[in-house]
């Protein structure tokens, strides 16, 4: 990041835009979730306010603003209020580290500046995202403890135990993809996924023209593990045990209402977006449009527009995964807590280990897969 005023301004705008993009996706997602669930269950869903019920959430937000402020007397004020704020931070920080599109250049005052389509770039971006999202457990524990409610605490403990359990499988499933690409940087990973599928098989280069060079073809098992683990990480169905209303009222946000409740939702959807963006980046080529990137780069007048188009490609993939999240929620029944823990520790962790070893063997045998 340069020090010139122009760069600072552009970067600030970029950062705010990305943050607002994330926040603004939330109403749409809520709408998708409600309408989608209605569609799956053969209902109407919210359809009164605005076309297709699209403005329903605006009305909800207004309602939330004017809800009564209530804090349980046994709660701890600071933690009670800090929890929803904390719930926002990990998602926002992690999302900002992911490249949402191709880098672009802008001319200003006779000089050409390079910009990345992300708020900041870190050499070890993947570790940063993992580190930041591991902080998500604090929001849960703050909420659970700060509410002064037994069920909240139980829900928080469950949620964080579940999160950390699946963080293992999540982190371990990434080792294979790291081995394949040999980098911690998202941008390098995306640029490694350009072009047709090609790899070296026992010293012979193989090119498969009709498939893109995406990570899923190298790490199918890793993808499945990562995908399953993200559901647990985001506390989504079928792993939404922490808020299992039949057992725990509403989990760690039992005592929350109004805007504070909404902030937890923003946090959760933020988590989902980060997860979808990661899935896209690791396994589906990031902002890569198969067989079209090169053409578009030539055809479009400026790199900024090209970047925006590629961003749409990226967001398309992200939205697809978000839709899958919704879809799964209304399709798969909820696990029992012991089943959940068993799946994480006794199935996914060993399988992820096996995946790691298998990848290591394959890489060392074939000497060069991908890249």
């Amino acid at each position: 990041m340069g020090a010139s005023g122009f760069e600072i301004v552009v970067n600030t705008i970029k950062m705010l835009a990305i943050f607002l993009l994330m926040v603004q996706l939330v109403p749409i997602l809520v709408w998708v979730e409600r309408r989608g669930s209605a569609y799956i269950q053969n209902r109407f869903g919210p359809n009164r306010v605005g076309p297709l019920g699209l403005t329903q959430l605006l009305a909800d937000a207004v309602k939330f603003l004017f809800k009564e402020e209530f804090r349980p007397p046994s709660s701890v004020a600071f933690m009670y209020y800090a929890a929803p704020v904390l719930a926002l931070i990990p998602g926002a920080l992690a999302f900002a580290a992911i490249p949402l599109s191709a880098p672009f250049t802008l001319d200003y005052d006779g000089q050409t500046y390079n910009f990345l389509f992300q708020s900041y770039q870190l050499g070890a971006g993947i570790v940063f995202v993992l580190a930041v999202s591991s902080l998500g457990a604090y929001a849960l524990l703050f909420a659970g403890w700060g509410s002064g409610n037994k069920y909240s605490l139980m829900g928080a403990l469950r949620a964080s135990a579940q999160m950390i359990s699946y963080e293992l499988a999540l982190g371990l499933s990434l080792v294979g993809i790291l081995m394949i690409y040999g980098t911690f940087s998202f941008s390098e990973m995306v640029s490694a996924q350009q072009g047709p599928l090609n790899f070296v098989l026992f010293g012979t280069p193989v090119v498969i023209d009709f498939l893109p060079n995406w990570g899923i073809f190298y790490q199918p098992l890793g993808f499945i593990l990562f995908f399953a683990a993200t559901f647990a990480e985001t506390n989504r169905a079928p792993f939404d045990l922490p808020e299992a209303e039949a057992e725990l009222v509403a989990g760690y946000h039992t005592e929350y209402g109004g805007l504070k409740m909404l902030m937890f939702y923003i946090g959760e959807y933020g988590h989902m977006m980060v997860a979808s963006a990661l899935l896209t980046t690791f396994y589906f080529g990031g902002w890569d449009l198969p067989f079209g990137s090169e053409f578009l780069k030539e055809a479009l007048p400026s790199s900024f527009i090209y970047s925006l188009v590629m961003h749409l490609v990226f967001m398309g993939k992200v939205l697809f995964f978000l839709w899958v999240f919704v879809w799964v929620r209304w399709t798969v029944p909820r696990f029992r807590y012991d089943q959940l823990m068993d799946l994480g520790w006794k199935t996914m962790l060993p399988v992820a280990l096996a995946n790691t070893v298998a990848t290591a063997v394959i890489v060392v045998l074939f000497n060069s897969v991908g890249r």
Partner: protein
Amino acid sequence: MEALVPILVLTLVVATFGSLLVYVSSILGPKKHYTRTKYMPYECGLPGTESETTNVSVRYYLTAILFIVFDIEILFMYPWALTYRDFIEAGHGAYIFWVMFVFIALFLFGLIWEIRSKALEWD
């Protein structure tokens, strides 16, 4: 270092945004009269009977301990995965493979031990 400033700024922005939301909602929301009944825990209309402290299963903190250990092991695999191909290209593929294989074998041994010792059973 370079990315530290935007991270800090973004954190600040998000925190401000969140605090603002909390503050605004507490200002705009109606203030009702708080009665004793409202503050009482609701338990099917009866006064609470259980003690305040909760009996929580030891499993939770055991899970956290196991998580710490495995988390560290996975973290140490990351630099290895990063440089795995560099080692292979330098001709030390077998070396680096066995180095990590021993590590993973220890990892797996621990995991199997924990599963066998029923430390991961939730009842």
